[in-house]
């Protein structure tokens, strides 16, 4: 998949998760009482879990509608054309279809819950057929509380996210009825309510994170000096400081936090971006101090396009090297 598409997918996934969370925790007028949601929340599996007994899972989204009901969600916008690679997502769904511990209740349990696979419309039918066929072959392969929900953004005006059940049913009557025929969540509501949430608990493509660093984070750093020789600002940063700032501004700190919450964007993701800049001669590492001097250039071109070009250049080089290697062995 082209890198630009991966960037687009990541952003769409974040917005889709927020829109789906809104469906669960909001009644159209107000936040439901005792409702909450989180990204990447640490949930404990039960001893009866088919694939991971007494283990830990971190669903993309955990959304509690009430003290009695919640959903855990795995989102995947793009699916490989090779269906043999879909088993991993099916396994994830199986792990989530369980009496999980970690809800926002007194005993951290809930009466009912569904495990949801959130799939883009372009693949939802195929995925639903895949899940249905798995269940036919082996009734235990797919849990009884598993649901496949399709999502897309409306093509007419692109100002809505649309969700509809494609496989299974929800234990919550209201949610089941809502998603049977499909429900639109206005983009406007998602943007206005969660205007700065940009990440979830999965690493984004490097250009996505780099663009936020270049546009929002690096310009806000105070420790800057102008280098007369190269005619650019030099901004001294560390991966830890940058990720801490991004968590506050665009990530995990914006959502409800407790002992089960995780932090994102992680400093390892940011470090990967800074190391990438080093390879592009846009940063110099100061290993002794564990910092980087970023050479902050003003791009005339679109910043995202620029970083995508740089990263795709690397991918092409890696592919060519692989091909050369193959030729070496088989030529």
């Amino acid at each position, binding site marked *: 998949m082209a890198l630009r598409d991966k960037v687009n997918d990541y952003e769409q996934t974040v917005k889709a998760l927020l829109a789906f969370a809104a469906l669960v925790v909001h009644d159209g007028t107000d936040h439901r009482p005792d409702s909450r949601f989180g990204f990447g929340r640490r949930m404990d599996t039960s001893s009866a879990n088919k694939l991971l007994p007494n283990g830990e899972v971190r669903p993309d989204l955990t959304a509690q509608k009430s003290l009695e009901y919640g959903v855990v969600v795995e989102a995947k916008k793009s699916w490989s054309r090779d269906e043999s690679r879909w088993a991993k997502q099916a396994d994830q769904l199986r792990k989530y279809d369980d009496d999980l511990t970690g809800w926002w209740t007194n005993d951290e349990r809930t009466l009912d819950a569904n495990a949801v696979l959130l799939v883009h419309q372009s693949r939802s039918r195929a995925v639903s057929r895949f899940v249905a066929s798995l269940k036919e072959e082996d009734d235990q392969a797919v849990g009884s509380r598993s649901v496949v929900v399709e999502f897309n953004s409306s093509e007419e*005006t692109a100002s809505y996210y649309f969700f509809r059940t494609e496989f299974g049913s929800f234990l919550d009557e209201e949610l089941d009825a809502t998603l049977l025929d499909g429900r639109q969540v206005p983009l406007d509501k998602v943007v206005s309510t969660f205007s700065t949430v940009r990440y979830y608990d999965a690493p984004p493509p490097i250009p996505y994170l780099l663009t936020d660093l*270049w546009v929002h984070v690096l310009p806000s750093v105070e420790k800057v000096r102008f280098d007369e020789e190269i005619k650019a600002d030099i901004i001294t940063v560390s991966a830890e400081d940058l990720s801490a700032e991004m968590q506050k501004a665009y990530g995990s700190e914006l959502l*409800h936090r407790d002992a089960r919450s995780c932090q994102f964007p992680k400093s390892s993701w940011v470090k990967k971006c800074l190391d990438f800049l080093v390879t592009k001669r846009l940063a110099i590492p100061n290993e002794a101090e564990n910092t980087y001097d970023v050479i902050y250039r003003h791009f005339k071109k*679109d*910043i995202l396009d620029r970083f995508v070009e740089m990263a795709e250049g690397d991918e092409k080089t890696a592919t060519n090297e692989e091909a050369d290697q193959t030729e070496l062995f088989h030529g």
Partner: protein
Amino acid sequence: MTLRTSEQSTAFEAFIESVYRLDGVDQIVATIGTLQIPLPYKVRIKILFSELEPRSYFETLATGPSESISQFGAGFETRILVGRPIPRTVRSHFFLVRFPNLSHHVEALVSICTADQWRTITRICRDAYPKLAPINLSQTELLGCAKKLKHYKEYSVRVKAFSASSRIRSASTRSRKSIREWTDEDLDKVSKDVRERGLVLNSMDLEFFPSVGGVDHVIPRATGTIRRSGELSVTGSFDVVFEAVAEEVARIGLKKLEFLSGRGLRESSYTPRPLSIEFNSRIFDDLENVRSFVTAVRKYPKSMHAVLHGNPYAHIKLVDILDRSSFELWVIPPKRIALIPGIRATGPAFDRLVAYLFDKVREGQLQDYGVTRQG
């Protein structure tokens, strides 16, 4: 009266320099109020905003290494090289006036000068951004300012002329046609006319007629031109225009900057306080308008951008490289632009962006946007 020879201009400038050497700004203002200023000279005013005080900024500049500005009496003198291939030095003078009823963050820069001299002064102000920020007036604010002055003390105020741009739309481009019209009409009629013709107002000339018992004099006491750039020029009584118009422009500008300030994520403890521009008509139902928006933002001066989506809705990241403020812009059909502040987003940077969007897209209503929640 008009000065026609360089000797006359030199003599007049010597006189003006002696006014600037008077003991304090109050005396200078009082003296200017009594003077007749010959063309091509005018009293010109620019309303400026600074996080410190505009005066402090110029004092720092004047005592620094710059040779282009120095203190002169109660004000400042500038010497700027202009022209090619043989540059010449343009000397200008100005002083700063506070508004007694407003914060010291906003002051009026006043100069008695020609258009040439004024350009050198405004260049210094432009180069000082973001330490000094201009007050930008929207068309609504410009009209509102004029409406408020319909009757000022013992004067009747009428619109003498206005300049505006009209959008010319062809298959390949959208360009502007500038027009200047003289009118003796009531302000409400002018306002309606401008709206109906789809014009964008750039400046208005207001005449102040002494009025007694509801009967107006036939000769105005003063004419003030207000521009959307927050600049004014005065013919006739400086006092009348300064008191009536300059303070109103400063008040409008300060109120707007206060509304726009404090929204950067770091300043607001990471609780976003976004804004939106709302339009009366469903302009973004037409995808061409969404695409035009994206094109306009790509061309925003002194910035870098990243377009995540351009069609059918728009989502763009933007950084102001002068000020280091950043924003996310969303076009949400049918009739909204959402402006989400970045980690750093100053009031002047917001104002610069909004003024640009009002000019290049359309003027709308600026307001708070959305309710932010945690999970």
